[in-house]
């Protein structure tokens, strides 16, 4: 028996908003850190945070997907094409996120070095799978990050449109914390 749920559950809301915050933070941190000069005091610590937070987001996203499968989400509202594009956009966001995780990992581990996850433990590296991996993965990482942020912006605008123009339950079901 499945009852109709009107709200995302609290965990799903927490996961959504934490992820959104971390993604925007990682994007800005990423852009900022690659422009630091070698003699900047943040030159070493900023990438260390970027990689550590990025890997935490990976763990969080894996959990989020499991959570999504084992819990029930409220139905998406709107016209048929809106529902379909929302589903497509959500799937694309998850897919792009994983490609960003993989490409980011491939930059740092191209020489076989592990990635330090804060000072908790080392995530092993498996070296290069192709020539100039750090450069190619870096370019892919950058364009995917820009794509993700663009898509998320469209996604957020769509949510606001549903809230203020259609005045439906779309944003409320992700917003209300009990």
């Amino acid at each position, binding site marked *: 028996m499945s009852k109709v749920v009107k709200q995302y559950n609290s965990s799903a809301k927490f996961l959504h908003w934490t992820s959104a915050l971390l993604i925007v933070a990682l994007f800005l941190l990423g852009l900022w850190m690659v422009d630091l000069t*070698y*003699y900047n005091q943040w030159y070493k610590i900023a990438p260390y945070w970027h990689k550590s937070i990025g890997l935490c987001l990976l763990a969080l996203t894996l959990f989020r997907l499991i959570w999504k499968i084992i819990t029930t989400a409220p139905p998406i509202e709107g016209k048929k094409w809106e529902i379909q594009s929302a589903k497509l956009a959500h799937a694309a966001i998850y897919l792009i996120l994983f490609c960003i995780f993989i490409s980011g990992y491939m*930059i740092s581990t191209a*020489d076989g*070095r592990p990635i330090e996850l804060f000072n908790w433990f080392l995530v092993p590296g498996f070296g290069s799978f192709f020539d100039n*991996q750090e*450069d190619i993965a870096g370019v892919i990482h950058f364009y995917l990050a820009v794509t993700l942020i663009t898509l998320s912006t469209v996604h957020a605008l769509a949510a606001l449109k549903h809230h203020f123009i259609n005045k439906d339950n779309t944003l409320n079901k992700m917003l209300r914390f009990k």
Partner: protein
Amino acid sequence: MKKLLLPATLVAAMLIPTFANAADYIIDTKGAHASINFKVSHLGYSFIQGRFNTFDGKFSFDPKNISASKVTVNVDTSSLDSNHAERDKHIKSGDFINASKFSTAKFVSTTASPKADGGLTISGDLTLHGVTKAITIDAHFIGEGKDPWGGYRAGFQGTTRLQLADFAIPVMGSSSYVDMELHVEGVRL
């Protein structure tokens, strides 16, 4: 001992058969018996050693007519390897050598002249980071002869100092120059 070295080399040189005249050699990158290494200051406290993994080249060499020697080398700048992927990515980026835009570096010799100490001075044009500049390599002939696999080889080593500013590569702190250490072994054609 040292006094004997020069006459001994001269005698050895004279013993080299006549067909050794200005022979052409292909630099043995296939067997990796050649390497292009660089050394850059790190903060002024120590040095970072790195190399370019991909290059090719050829040279002509006649021990009896050093000035007829010639050498050309092409280096794939994206093959820079300092044994640290994140650092390589940074050095290869637009902040430094811009390997995606200036993907090859090229050295073409113009003159070669013997030196009193038995070495040779190789002058030529180096194109790096889109800038062509005359440089001089301080080289030494190491040896030549038959290899165990039916070929004939000759090898050199050379050093030169490149000022980064000469090639419009941004200078950072104490790292204003790069010392190149070149090991070149050629297989005669």
